[in-house]
């Protein structure tokens, strides 16, 4: 019962039932009042007027005149509309439509609403009784029972309406509550299943597009997103675990070998240096991950300034020139003047550096790398790094920016598989995208940075 009371559906339904009854009452009470005051009082007045007129007839024309008048009126009127009776002092009828003075009429002049015995049956009547000089009695009356069925019908109608409201309200509430409970139950079961760790569950949705469906669809969207994120996290942690295992395993075996074989000093120191290099590799992975986390958090946006992407790229190109020269790579840079964006100069430099670094690792000796900075028709700044290396297989392109992903073509080259992830994260931080396209042959990696994005994505 407690649960019934606490159900919001029932509370609402009861509220509406009460409201309906109140509305009915607000309608019926004035009506009842008007009926009683206006109609009843009006009827009394008509009767009094009638009695007054007959009294005047008696005063002017005497008993004979009144008798004739009454007989004429009784002959004209519709039966039962008006009760008229003139009697002598001993209540013997002289004229009118009653055969005898009705029983139950109180003595005395005035108005009475009584159950009078009219024409053999008790009738609810409103009577005006007058006595004329000479002992004559006049009775003018009106049958009240004519309106009784109407009043009764009104009352019954009112009660019927209240009962109907109540039954429909409570019944509807119970039905509604049952339906709501069923829907909520479905959601609750799904959510419990999800809480137990199975993220594949989705809330049931009907095609009805009602409030619950909208809610369910929104929640399902949220679940999709959470599942995606969690899968991403578990992928990343799997990859971290996997990628860290290799250098750590090497380190471990190196140290263990040192401890067991105890080689001469020179060799020991060489091994220690190698061990330090192993640790450095692990640290490198961690710093790259931390940098990624820093970029992803979006905190760097607060430090955005106006940056000339062309100048940033030119500096990075200059930085890499000797390295390219050493490998005999044809390294070219083109820019169409200043390309200002709102951004973080260090991150943009790192992104361009990563792209060039990737290309430099992948191209063969005497290969070619070209860096271009330009503006698109829509004003977006485009930083493109193209090479003629092996490129990235189409199937691998969507995965290339995932953390620790290394395509077949990049296996065997140095690196930890986070370079493109960082570029992608930097592009996203600036409201842009990283596109990996085919350079026929080779890779064309371009960062597209919308000019206003940095401001609008704040």
């Amino acid at each position: 019962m407690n649960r019934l009371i606490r159900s919001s559906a029932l509370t609402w339904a009861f509220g509406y039932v009460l409201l309906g009854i109140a509305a009915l009452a607000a309608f019926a009470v004035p009506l009842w009042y008007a009926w009683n005051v206006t109609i009843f009082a009006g009827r009394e007045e008509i009767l009094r007027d009638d009695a007054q007129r007959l009294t005047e007839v008696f005063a002017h024309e005497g008993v004979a005149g009144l008798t004739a008048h009454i007989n004429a009126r009784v002959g004209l009127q519709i039966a039962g509309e008006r009760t008229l009776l003139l009697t002598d002092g001993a209540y013997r009828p002289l004229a009118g439509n009653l055969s005898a003075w009705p029983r139950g009429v109180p003595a005395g002049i005035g108005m009475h609403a009584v159950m009078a015995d009219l024409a053999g049956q008790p009738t609810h009547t409103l009577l005006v009784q007058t006595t004329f000089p000479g002992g004559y009695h006049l009775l003018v009356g009106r049958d009240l029972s004519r309106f009784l069925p109407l009043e009764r019908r009104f009352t019954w109608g009112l009660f019927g309406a209240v009962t109907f409201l109540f039954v429909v309200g409570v019944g509807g509430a119970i039905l509604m509550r049952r339906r709501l409970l069923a829907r909520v139950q479905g959601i609750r079961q799904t959510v419990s299943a999800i809480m137990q760790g199975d993220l594949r569950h989705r809330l049931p949705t009907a095609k009805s597009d009602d409030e619950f469906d909208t809610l369910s669809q929104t929640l399902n969207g949220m679940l999709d997103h959470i599942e995606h994120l969690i899968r991403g996290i578990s992928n990343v942690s799997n990859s971290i675990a996997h990628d860290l295992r290799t250098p750590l395993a090497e380190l471990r075996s190196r140290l263990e070998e040192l401890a067991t074989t105890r080689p001469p000093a020179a060799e020991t120191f060489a091994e220690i240096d190698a061990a330090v290099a192993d640790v450095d590799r692990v640290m490198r992975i961690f710093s790259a991950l931390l940098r990624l986390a820093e970029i992803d958090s979006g905190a760097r946006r607060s430090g955005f300034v106006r940056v000339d992407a062309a100048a940033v790229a030119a500096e990075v190109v200059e930085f890499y020139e000797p390295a390219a020269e050493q490998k005999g790579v044809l390294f070219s840079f083109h820019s169409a003047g200043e390309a200002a964006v709102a951004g973080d100069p260090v991150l943009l430099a790192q992104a361009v550096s990563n792209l060039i670094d990737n290309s430099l690792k992948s191209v063969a000796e005497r290969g070619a790398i070209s860096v271009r900075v330009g503006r698109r028709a829509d004003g977006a700044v485009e930083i493109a790094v193209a090479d003629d290396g092996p490129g990235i297989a189409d199937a691998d392109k969507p995965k290339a920016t995932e953390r620790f992903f290394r395509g077949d073509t990049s296996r065997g080259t140095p690196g930890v598989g986070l370079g493109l992830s960082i570029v992608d994260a930097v592009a996203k931080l600036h409201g842009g995208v990283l596109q990996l396209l085919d350079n026929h042959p080779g890779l064309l990696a371009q960062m597209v940075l919308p000019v206003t994005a940095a401001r609008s994505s704040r």
Partner: protein
Amino acid sequence: MKILVVEDNERVARFVTRGLRESGHTVEHAANARDGLFMAASEPHDVIVMDRMLPGDIDGLAIIEALRKSGNRTPILILSALNDVDERIRGLRSGGDDYLTKPFAFGELLARVDALGRRSVPGSGERTLQVGDLRMDLLSRRVTRGSRAITLQPREFKLLEYLMRHANQVVTRTMLLEAVWDYNFDPQTNVVDVHISKLRGKLELDSERPLLRTVRNAGYMLCEHE
């Protein structure tokens, strides 16, 4: 040099103090913020190595601020496990002179401590730098070795200037990246090495005495003497 190390982690402190002592420095160690502040304020040091996170209610940055407010200008190297750019900026803004992220190679720490302890005061009005027979005119931007003129690209000039200002000190690759290129990220490949070898090619002709030495596991050193 007399160096104060304020570091609460025992192992790191031992590693740092031992290494600095072996390199010929006098080292004092404070294991908490109060001792650190007291020691830094009570006697002069050439360099202070300050851990950013210290136990107790005062952290490293607060000590640095307190020292700077009291007029202490000792160069300070901040050690921190926080590698965010913002943290770095906060550290340097509080009055630190250099920022090194843990974990670090000892060579890196030593090189930075040396650089801080012996850095020439900027704006001291020098017009030329000289290391052995290598001369750099900062105004006319001319570089000569003996009587031979050396033509350098602007960036090579900046690189050589930094090396000459830190002559006879080890300069690490990260220090060069930060000072010459203003990059504080890891460029993955040994790009700095390539720049150095190119510069070396211009500085040292076959017949000449080598000037720019590679220090294993640490970086480079521009040497005046053999």
